[in-house]
């Protein structure tokens, strides 16, 4: 019963934090409105016109397919990047030889600007969704790689030896000793890779014209339609905010439970989200 109440209170705490976030975003909207008042619709359309345009686009049936397409491109690339980066990173963390082999390559990949990858991907795959997904993979995999390598390399040897001495079974060793430690490094890397993958996907779509939100942005640019361009931007921002507050932040808080409990006391009261 107490457990349920504790969870409920924590959930309320989290949801209530949304008000503070809303205050911050509304102040930004006020700044936007002031920019509109100063420079006019051609430079900066008003927030209300932009939302109206977004709603119109939704009504026309243009918004949802574009969002689905971009999400597909971004998520496909992200999943592949997590697998490749995660496995290679774990190998690099576990073996010194692999680290010597792979680290410089990851550093090199991180150094190549995403826009350069877009150009290469367009030459290789043409104007298709594959180009966007590929760009997402090559730009985000090195980030996941670094996180995974760090996580494995810093595993506490003493803890491992103690677990062995107590004859902890293998699955429990992985689940209760390795994984929580790994996640504290891997999760931030995955979170930034996920957020980045959307932005990269939109950029690749914009240049390739392969549909999705980026394509809509490109069309708005050609038509000099600032309202529509800003509405597309709003769509991306909305997706990112939803991703951050509905998926990443709750997971982050769940993973950090041990930190809260280690402090003891009425932590749910004092650790607000925002």
């Amino acid at each position, binding site marked *: 019963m107490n457990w349920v109440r504790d969870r409920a209170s924590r959930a309320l705490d989290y949801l209530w934090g949304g*008000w*503070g976030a809303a205050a911050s975003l509304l102040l930004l909207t006020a700044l936007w409105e002031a920019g509109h008042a100063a420079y006019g619709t051609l430079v900066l359309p008003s927030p209300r016109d932009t939302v109206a345009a977004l709603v119109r686009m939704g009504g026309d049936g243009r918004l949802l397919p574009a969002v689905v397409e971009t999400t597909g491109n971004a998520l496909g690339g992200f999943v592949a990047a997590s697998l490749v980066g995660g496995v290679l990173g774990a190998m690099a963390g576990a073996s010194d030889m692999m680290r010597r082999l792979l680290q410089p390559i990851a550093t090199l990949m991180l150094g190549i600007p995403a826009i350069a990858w877009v150009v290469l991907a367009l030459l290789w795959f043409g104007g298709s969704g594959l180009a966007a997904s590929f760009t997402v993979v090559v730009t985000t995999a090195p980030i996941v790689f670094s996180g995974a390598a760090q996580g494995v390399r810093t595993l506490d040897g003493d803890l491992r030896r103690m677990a062995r001495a107590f004859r902890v079974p293998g699955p429990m060793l992985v689940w209760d000793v390795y994984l929580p430690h790994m996640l504290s490094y891997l999760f931030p890397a995955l979170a930034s890779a996920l957020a980045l993958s959307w932005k990269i996907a939109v950029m690749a779509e914009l240049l390739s014209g392969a549909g999705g939100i980026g394509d809509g942005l490109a069309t708005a640019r050609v038509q000099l339609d600032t309202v529509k361009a800003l509405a597309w931007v709003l769509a991306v921002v909305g997706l990112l905010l939803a991703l951050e507050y509905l998926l990443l932040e709750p997971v982050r808080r769940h993973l950090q439970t041990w930190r809260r409990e280690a402090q003891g006391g009425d932590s749910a009261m004092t650790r607000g989200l925002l």
Partner: protein
Amino acid sequence: MNATVLAYGFRPFFLLAPLAGAAAVLPLPMIWLGWGGMWGDLSIGAWHGHEQVFGFLSAALAGFLLTALPSWTGATPVTGRNLAGLCLLWLVGRIAFWLDPLLPPALVAAADILFLPALLVAVVPVLRRPGPKPWEFVAALAALAAVNAVFHLGRLGVVEVAPERAATVALNLFQVLIALALGRILPVVLRSAQIEAGRAPQVRLMPGRRHLAVTTLVLFTVAEAVVPGHAVTGWIALAAACAQVDRMRECHLAGALRRPQAALFYVAQGWMALGLALLGLSALGMPLDPAAARHALGLGAGATTALTVMSVVSLRHTARPFPLPAATWGPAALVSVATALRVAVPDLAPEAMAMAGVTIPMLLWLTAFGLWLRTFSPWLLRPRVDGCPG
């Protein structure tokens, strides 16, 4: 006035504030019964707004500041002859406003303009005390005095500001003052509420929440002063509303909201958030009555906070122990019902305005202050129960 009444700042001003609040609504039915909409050359709306803000709320503020600031900083409180002088200055302003149709506006201005600067002079010495200085209250008070001056200068035609606009800015300044005062009051009352509810007190408030609440209110006040009714002001009002709701989280402590000292401040913050949200939506083009929304700020947030602060201060500074008497709930509940009617009727049932929107809220308001005075005026008129001075 006897010596006890002048023994501490809250005593005379908490007796005067309810009387001023009651007096400020009496001419209202005149408009709605069709007997004319002017009080002298002022619209009844401007007159009523000025009296509620600079009469009723300012008296409550004076009582609070003259009591709380010395007790936080250890400064010598204003008592006796000086306190009587302050009360007199306040009273002269009220009398002048009541006789407004008979007096030249310049004389009314001269009579009304002195009280807030005098109060400022009376509280400034607290800044010279060692330790943390409550400069934010002094600054807000100075701003309030300046806005009252603008009200009169606008009326006299010296500056091009409508008196109504000055009154709204003053009301917004009061929201800032409420948010500031809650920062000092809430830790104390939440603790006492939790103890009364039989819980171990665990009050750890995050300063970020209240600073965001105050900052957004200051931005809103400035925006309404500079570009009233503009969409930018609308968005800032919505941001301020969200920041107030965010701050209401401070009261979500086990058991606390079952006690009046915490629950009534919570209600006041709720009214403030609602008023700001309605003002914001109206500035963004929704067909809502801004005057109704301002009553959520003045009547809802302002009067509920004033009643609760007056109750808590009267209790503590006459050396009585918690719990607050039942007479704290009743008047506050009546004020909330009055607010709900005054805010909802203009938008939902404008044809019922004269009765349900003005007359009934007015009667509830008068009853509320009658009930409050019946319990608390004996406390304010008699010495402390422990026999100490003050």
